[in-house]
């Protein structure tokens, strides 16, 4: 039986959106006031139990209610119905440097901020040097924070936040701060928090971050929990959601109809998984409406984080495309792609060698690369270790 640290029971949150706020408007339109009220349910019947020592990721689209849920857990917003109970010491990192006063020095702000997060003065005294060292802004600690660069500001704020000693840490989109070495430092700190048995609930848009940190993912959609469980599955559901949105957008764009010289009339993307990788085949039909002698096709493969893993076009391959008016078929085979596990998107484009775009199909299709057997990353590799004694 695991100990629970947070329990959310049957929680709903309704926001009432008023159209007008001043006394005059309220008095003048007193009888019609209900016409100007709009109810909006940010959370609907949420039940959630967070066991001690777990790291839970809340993911979802913008406006899906994940930040609201975090605020309800943190006690910042009172739920309309239902109860939230929790125990232990909580620190909420919803915005870095929320309590910073621009006119005060870094030192003074550290004390105020630490106190807001629940540290006593003595504890702050004890941690103060660590905090300053972690932030890496020793020289400027007695400067007013209004003169800080934005990077220095968030680094100091984050340094304070990770030095409070919380049992429960609520984090909202604040882990991606500072330069790369500092981000690494933050991630290391979070990892050591996890080893020390602290509970973390975090809201993030970054699937890779959620995948790396969390042992449980909750997918929110329109105020409801649509998935609660294993991170890999959760991230897949989230991405499928994004994907279907994108498909809908693409279809809408297609309907709008683009009257250019060259267009796609048919797109068929198929993939075949085998032992060493994936074979991807693109079958396209292109219609040339006006006679143009200079057109070509470009294909880009991207992972879901938007990293381009491969790009190719017909100009680079010095291929001549048929210039005659009418429909033409193009088949592109991409055999034996040794890509790391995950979903990949295929983007297509038609254009001229001078860079003019005739038509584009962003996210025209997708394929899945199978789970890696060895290691992880963008590539699928069969590694061979040779372990022996030193020569």
């Amino acid at each position, binding site marked *: 039986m695991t*100990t*629970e*640290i947070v*329990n959310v029971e049957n929680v709903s949150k309704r*926001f009432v959106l008023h159209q007008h*706020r*001043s*006394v005059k408007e309220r008095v003048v339109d007193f009888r019609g006031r209900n016409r100007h009220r709009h109810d909006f349910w940010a959370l609907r019947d949420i039940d959630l139990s967070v066991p*001690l*020592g777990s790291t839970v990721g809340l993911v979802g689209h913008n406006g899906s209610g994940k930040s609201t849920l975090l*605020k*309800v*857990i*943190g*006690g*910042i*917003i*009172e*739920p309309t119905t239902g*109860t*939230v*109970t*929790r*125990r*232990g010491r*909580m620190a*909420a990192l*919803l*915005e870095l440097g*929320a*309590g910073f*006063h621009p*006119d*005060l020095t870094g030192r*003074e702000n550290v*004390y*105020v901020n630490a*106190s*807001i*997060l629940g540290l*006593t*003065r003595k504890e702050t005294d004890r941690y103060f040097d660590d905090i300053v060292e972690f932030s890496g802004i020793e020289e400027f600690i007695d400067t*007013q924070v209004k003169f800080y660069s934005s990077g220095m500001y968030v680094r100091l704020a984050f340094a304070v936040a990770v030095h409070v000693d919380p*049992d429960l840490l609520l984090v909202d989109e604040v882990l991606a701060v500072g330069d790369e070495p500092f981000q690494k430092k933050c991630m290391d700190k979070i990892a*050591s928090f996890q*080893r*020390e*048995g*602290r509970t973390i609930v975090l809201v993030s848009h970054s699937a890779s971050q959620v995948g790396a940190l969390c042992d449980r993912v909750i997918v929110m959609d329109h105020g409801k929990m649509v998935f609660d469980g294993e991170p890999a599955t959760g991230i897949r559901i989230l991405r499928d959601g994004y994907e279907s949105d994108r498909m809908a957008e693409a279809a809408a764009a297609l309907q709008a109809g683009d009257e250019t010289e060259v267009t796609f009339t048919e797109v068929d993307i198929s993939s075949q998984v085998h032992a060493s990788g994936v074979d991807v085949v693109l079958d396209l039909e292109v219609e040339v409406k006006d006679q143009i002698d200079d057109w070509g096709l470009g294909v880009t493969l991207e992972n879901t984080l938007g990293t381009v893993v491969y790009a190719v076009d017909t100009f680079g391959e010095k291929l001549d495309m048929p210039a005659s008016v009418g429909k033409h078929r193009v088949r592109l085979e991409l055999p034996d792609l040794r890509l790391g596990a995950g979903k990949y998107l295929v983007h297509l484009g038609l254009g001229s060698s001078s860079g003019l775009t005739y038509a584009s199909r962003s996210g025209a299709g997708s394929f899945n690369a199978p789970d890696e057997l060895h290691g992880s990353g963008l590539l699928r590799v069969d590694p061979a270790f040779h372990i022996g004694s030193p020569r």
Partner: protein
Amino acid sequence: MTNPSYEAARRAANIENEAMVSVTPPSGLFRGSRKSMREIWEYRELLWLLVRREVKARYKDSYLGIVWSLFRPLAQLFIYYFAIGQILGAARSLPDFAILVFIGLTWWGLFAEIVQSTTTSVIGNAGLVKKTYLPREIFPLAATGGALVNFVIQVAVLLVAIAVISSYRLSTDLLMAPVSMLIILCFGTAVGLILAAVNVYLRDVQHFVEVAIIILFWASPIVYGFTFVANALHGSWVEQIYLSNPVTISILGAQKALWSQGTLATGDLAQSWPPDLWPRLLITLLISVVLLWIGQRIFARLQGNFAQEL
């Protein structure tokens, strides 16, 4: 360096001993106020830091710093002293007119500053209210604290001034000064808590307060003597209404304690005082404490939606 797994086990053991507590404050009258009080007590260090932050930030980068807080009441003192005291002649019937006015201005200033700064305190700290969990009463209380700091400085100047240009009358009446200060503190904070909460929903409140403060200034014997009121109203029910104003009664208390000439002067300069000043003060103090409690309950009830209304 402690072993992390040992650390984790210790943490788990500690937490298992704690009971699950509801995040939303109980709204029951008595249970709720006990919990609020305990929470505010837990954050007392932050309260002090916020008061210091307010005071420090206000006078940061100015050469004279906190001395500036004295200039406004001193300027007011000179204006009233010359305009009302000398030109309109009020000083002729009021001994030590400058002392009288400065006592009134100091006590009134405490009330006005508490009410004005608490009213905007929650909105002024919107960033914190929306992004962190704190007992929200902290913000009005910190504003009250800031006003109290200014008050203490003014009182120090006042006490020195009395010693130099007038004299102290040693009697138990001197205790009326701290009692009257407590009344203003409790009453002002009570009013401020309610206004701060309502102001979140209806921003008109802060403008209303500005106007009300200007008008109410004349409803207490600050730049005129109580004798003038007593002569005009002859102890009628209107005078009783006038005296039921907690600010008026505490300013009178402060004057009785510190304005020695008001009690000692004889002949033409003899002053009248309201009857039963001590009982009035103590009853008003009691009422103010009850009001403070009611104010906190109203604040607690309204604070649930602060984060989304700001």
